[in-house]
């Protein structure tokens, strides 16, 4: 099999030095993806012809001394809920079968502007609703470390693609942990930026007050490079942040002296979860402490209510956002309908999978007359309490460290029949979305041969701080350099 691709930084150096061409890199990426694909299921589609053509254009730009950026010509993958003009956009759903996007999402437009070449669209839980990439109409993605296990989700395809080295980095989206949890399960870095840091234009909406585009990569340095490409204000997204984008890579000084790392006592329970996971995470914090950081205990008292709050809010928003799939303007339309009303019902029933229907129904329930105050409004109030928890904790620390997930990757099918147990795998990630904060998952060890992730959380716009700490950790350890055996 062709070799795994290196990091963004390594590939940028190689292109700069002229030791390889963009065309060679993209061909290597496509060949590796195709060789791994039958067993892995990371991609929903490869853009072989277009990607090779774009790589040739990148080579010509570089030959005349005018690359679009140091990353010009490097292959990347994109989760299939981000629109790319002229390409299918499926969201892993039957209801978008045959849909071809008429425009390009802002995040992907930023990739193109920097010359990065999108080689493929990656698998996901349908409409990004899930934690295992099992809820995709195309079938599951498998965990590169154990094919009987899930890669996590919903950005499981992006995480598996990066872990197996068919691309050095990929875009995902994170509504309740959908970048960080699969990053943790697949042994790669996953960064969810501050809400609004990356434009959501052209990111198919799931829960609009929580959705955020994120990056998956092999190292914190690569995550910094890619975030720098996609972040920024977008006049076409009124929730995107106007603050200028800092040079994230320049923030990676390796220096964490004096950094106060908060350990939320509620995230390290005496019982429950996997004790070995907590031990790895504590060892990672100890590593940062030995590099000069200071550990402080903080409290996030409403943590245990985060999952319930999250699932009430995200389903309410989803039930509203997914009303647009009605068979009129695009996507699947049931051929078995006599009237318009029948067409709506049959189209949606045939087009949506079980988890999406479950969430639409729950969201419809919590927004319906008589239940709105007790469920939806209540959840919004608890969301305020969760935000305040973080504000208070950050009076005593600069970053908060937690496990990304309470356990390593679970088995395929293990939680499919029990939605609540599936939802509980998001226990350490959803609060961050409810509070709109930036957070990263960094590989910090293995349990039973499966990767474990350290999550670092910062106050709003603290991306430079989480990246600096993550990079400092990676300068001192080599967990991020491990690859699954078959992909080595």
């Amino acid at each position: 099999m062709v070799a795994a691709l290196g990091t963004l930084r390594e590939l940028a150096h190689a292109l700069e030095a002229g030791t390889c061409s963009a065309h060679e890199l993209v061909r290597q990426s496509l060949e590796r993806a195709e060789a791994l694909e039958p067993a892995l299921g990371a991609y929903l589609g490869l853009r072989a012809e277009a990607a090779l053509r774009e790589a040739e254009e990148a080579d010509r730009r570089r030959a005349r001394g005018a690359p679009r950026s140091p990353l010009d010509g490097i292959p990347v993958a994109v989760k299939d809920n981000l629109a790319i003009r002229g390409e299918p956009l499926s969201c892993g759903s039957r209801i978008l079968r045959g849909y071809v996007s008429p425009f390009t999402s802002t995040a992907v437009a930023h990739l193109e502007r920097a010359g990065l070449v999108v080689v493929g669209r990656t698998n996901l839980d349908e409409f990004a609703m899930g934690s295992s990439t099992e809820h995709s109409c195309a079938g599951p993605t498998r965990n590169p470390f154990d094919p009987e296990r899930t890669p996590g989700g919903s950005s499981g395809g992006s995480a598996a693609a990066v872990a197996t080295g068919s691309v050095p980095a990929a875009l995902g989206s994170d509504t309740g942990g959908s970048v960080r949890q699969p990053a943790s399960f697949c042994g790669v870095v996953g960064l969810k930026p501050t809400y609004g840091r990356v434009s959501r234009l052209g990111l198919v909406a799931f829960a609009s007050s929580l959705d955020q585009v994120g990056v998956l990569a092999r190292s914190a340095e690569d995550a910094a490079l890619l975030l720098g490409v996609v972040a920024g204000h977008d006049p076409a997204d009124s929730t995107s942040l106007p603050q200028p984008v800092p040079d994230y890579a320049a923030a990676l000084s390796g220096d964490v002296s004096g950094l106060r790392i908060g350990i939320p006592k509620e995230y390290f329970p005496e019982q429950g979860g996997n004790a070995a996971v907590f031990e790895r995470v504590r060892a990672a914090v100890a590593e940062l402490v030995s590099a000069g950081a200071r550990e402080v205990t903080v409290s996030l008292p409403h943590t245990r209510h985060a999952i319930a709050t999250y699932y009430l809010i995200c389903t309410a928003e989803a039930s509203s956002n997914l009303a647009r799939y009605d068979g009129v303007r695009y996507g699947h339309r049931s051929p078995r309908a006599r009237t318009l009303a029948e067409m709506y019902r049959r189209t949606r029933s045939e087009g949506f999978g079980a988890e999406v229907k479950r969430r639409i129904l729950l969201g419809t329930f919590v927004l319906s007359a008589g239940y709105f105050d007790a469920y939806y409004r209540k959840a919004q109030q608890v969301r305020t309490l969760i935000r305040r928890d973080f504000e208070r904790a950050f009076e005593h620390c600069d970053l908060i460290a937690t496990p990304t997930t309470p356990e390593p990757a679970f088995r395929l099918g293990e939680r499919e029949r029990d939605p609540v147990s599936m939802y509980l795998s998001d226990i350490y990630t959803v609060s961050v979305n409810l509070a709109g904060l930036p957070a990263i998952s960094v590989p910090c060890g293995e349990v039973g041969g499966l990767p474990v992730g350290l999550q670092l959380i910062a106050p709003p716009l603290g991306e430079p701080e989480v990246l600096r700490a993550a990079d400092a950790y990676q300068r001192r350890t080599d967990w991020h350099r491990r690859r699954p055996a078959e992909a080595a």
Partner: protein
Amino acid sequence: MDAPGITLEDLRRLADLARLELGDGEATALAADLARILGFVRQLQELDTAGVPPTAHVMELATPLREDEPDAPLPPEEAIRNAPAHEGTAFLVPQVLDSDEA
């Protein structure tokens, strides 16, 4: 308040609101799922949230304003290209009223 049980009748009403048509087996399974999820989220009722303002959105931004400048819209021919059925640049749909009602 107690989490309500979800009867099949409740579920049919919700499905109707959400424009979903559910088979009998599907409806029974979903009613059980919803009951279980509602049982789980009921824990929020133990929290006293009197006087706590709801968070609809984390960014306390004022609605940003911009100049109203004309821009090129998506051409109708392109917008219609994904339509399951169309005539010219109009979307075609099945009859709106049931003929019995008309």
